[in-house]
């Protein structure tokens, strides 16, 4: 139907180059959510007797005020982009992945264990194999709630949250036991962290003397790849079909449970890759707090990017900057960086609340298009 209509009309009439309502829907409305949350953050700062102008100035300055700030923002944007890509895929199949934290941890565990065990391998082999294994570990952690949801209709939000806690405890078990740094044991400090992974397993730096590593490029490339996957492949089409209308998909012969489980598995894989890259590019060892809450912040970035792989790129850079800026704010004006977590929560509330307007807007636009077509 749609295709016929499109074919009968010149494409330029159907799709204007500047689609204003699209810009409002997918760009201005989410941005308004961020601004509103930051405004409430300012009110909270005033109540806490801190100067909001100074706090936000420190935040902006920390995020983009220096080369080190900008590169750090990009370093933090990298895992957000990867986790967000997975959340986009799952969300397109109408599966909500709150399990990013646990999946990151699994990827990080494997990306620590493997290079430490096969430390003799050359870098050109070790790095890609470790990245793939990190992806697979996260995918396995996503597969469990995915298959439970698809086959037994177990609520995936609750199961992924439980999987997060299990992964967290599993990591504690490892860094206090089998993976504990032998140097720490020898020195008697018994720090709960692993040994450093071998030098050839670390990701190369893009700019010397900064933290920016090759993982950022990989994440960008994957964002484009996921875009093509979702909109230009049959599997991607089926994932989106399952999300839009599972009943219609079933009648069309699509194996709905399979694609639900697949989308959650892929989501886990991307988060696992984020964990592997965090080990190989930033921390170089496994330690508590390795996820930095990226599993949750990635959800916010995905929502703000309108669940679109390419929209995610600016969204994750924005949140990478906010996270770096929050640390600077804590240093400069002694406002705990937890403020940013509260603000992130508000952003989620506002963006999810604004969906009503975008739905109505979309409906009105469709009606408008239809009546317009009838006239012509």
């Amino acid at each position, binding site marked *: 139907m749609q295709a016929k209509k499109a074919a009968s009309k010149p494409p330029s009439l159907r799709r204007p180059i500047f689609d204003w309502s699209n810009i409002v829907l997918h760009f201005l409305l989410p941005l308004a959510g961020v601004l509103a949350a930051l405004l409430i953050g300012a009110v909270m700062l005033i109540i806490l007797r801190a100067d909001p102008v100074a706090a936000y100035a420190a935040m902006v300055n920390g995020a983009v005020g220096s080369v080190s700030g900008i590169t750090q923002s990009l370093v933090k944007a990298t895992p957000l982009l990867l986790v967000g890509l997975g959340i986009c895929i799952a969300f397109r199949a109408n599966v909500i992945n709150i399990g990013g934290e646990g999946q990151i941890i699994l990827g990080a565990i494997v990306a620590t264990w493997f290079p430490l065990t096969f430390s003799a391998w050359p870098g050109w082999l070790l790095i890609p194999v470790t990245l793939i294994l990190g992806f697979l570990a996260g995918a396995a952690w996503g597969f469990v709630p995915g298959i439970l949801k698809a086959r037994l209709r177990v609520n995936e939000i609750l199961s992924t949250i*439980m999987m997060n*806690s299990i992964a967290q*405890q599993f990591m504690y*078990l490892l860094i206090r036991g089998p993976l504990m740094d032998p140097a720490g044991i020898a020195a008697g400090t018994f720090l709960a962290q692993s040994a450093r992974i071998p030098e050839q397993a670390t990701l190369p730096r893009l700019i010397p003397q900064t933290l920016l590593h090759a993982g950022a490029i990989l994440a960008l490339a994957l964002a484009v790849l996921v875009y093509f996957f979702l909109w230009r492949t049959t599997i991607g089409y089926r994932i989106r079909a399952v999300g839009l209308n599972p009943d219609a998909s079933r009648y069309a012969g699509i194996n709905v449970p399979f694609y639900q489980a697949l989308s959650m598995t892929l989501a886990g894989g991307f988060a696992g890759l984020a964990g592997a890259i965090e080990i190989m590019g930033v921390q170089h060892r496994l330690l508590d707090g390795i996820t930095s809450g990226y599993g949750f912040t990635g959800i916010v970035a995905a929502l703000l990017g309108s669940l679109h792989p390419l929209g995610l790129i600016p969204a994750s850079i924005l949140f990478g900057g906010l996270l770096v800026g929050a640390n600077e704010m804590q240093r400069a004006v002694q406002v705990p960086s937890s403020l940013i977590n509260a603000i992130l*929560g508000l952003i989620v509330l506002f963006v*999810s609340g604004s969906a009503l307007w975008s739905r109505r807007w979309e409906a009105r636009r469709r009606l408008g298009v239809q009546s317009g077509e009838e006239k012509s």
Partner: protein
Amino acid sequence: MNDIASAGVLGGILISMIRLATPFLYAAVGETFAQTSGVVNLGVDGIMLLSAYGAFYVALNTGNLWLALLTAAAIGLLMGLLMSFISVTLKAEQGISGIGLYMFGLGMSSLLFKITIGTVKTIDGFQPVKIPLLGNIPGVGPILFTHSLPVYGAFLLVPIAWWVLDKTTLGLKIKSVGQNPAAADSLGINVDRIRYFSVCLGAVLAGLAGASLSTALVDLFQDNLTAGQGFIAVALVYFGGWNPWGVLGGALLFSVVNSIQLWMQVLGVKIPSDVAVMLPYLLTIAALTVTVNRVRQPAALNKPFERGES
């Protein structure tokens, strides 16, 4: 292993089971109201955290534990209003808005804790009250009838909630907007108002759940004090089949596993504590898997209501 089976340890396990069940009961019975009306509030953990902080702050500075409970209830009410506004009036995807509320509560409680308290301190929380006569029954008395008031309150809540949901007009209205909001609407029931009420009642109880942790059970506050108990409470509602008695069964099952786990650590049974701490989470997944589809969930669960749709 002999130690575990001894009478003293058994009593200890039962006492901590009853104590540990308290926050689960408040939060899960509250969530039962919200879900029966058709709204999944996933922000319970966030409400618990912020209320636990609020109650602790008030108790630390005024020493008035009842004022602390009132503060927690007020924080719960405000967060419930926010959740209902986003989920009922603005008809947001409930899974997402709930996670937003959780992140807000987690971040906000941590922020306020760091600014206003700073380090982990303890307070003199609610003390055990021995119920006259019943408390003197040998064996049973010390286990069942020597607890603090918030613990008794949690267990009293179960029959009250059952009575309200099953035997009153209000309960019938809550069920009807959760089963078939369009039909309820056509009968003149204000769907949105009933859902606001149910979500807010649930949130107030979640607030008391948080307060029971920080002022009656552990008597302290720290970052992420609840460690996901609010999410387990949401799972308990599914497990309990949207029935307060089922929720009670689930809460007791969870708490007994938790309390055995704690006692095993106390007694030095050789299992790594990390593995033991995983148990409740594993149990939650298992419980969700076993109980899914056993009881029909409210038909309109997770579905915003809009007049003229469907």
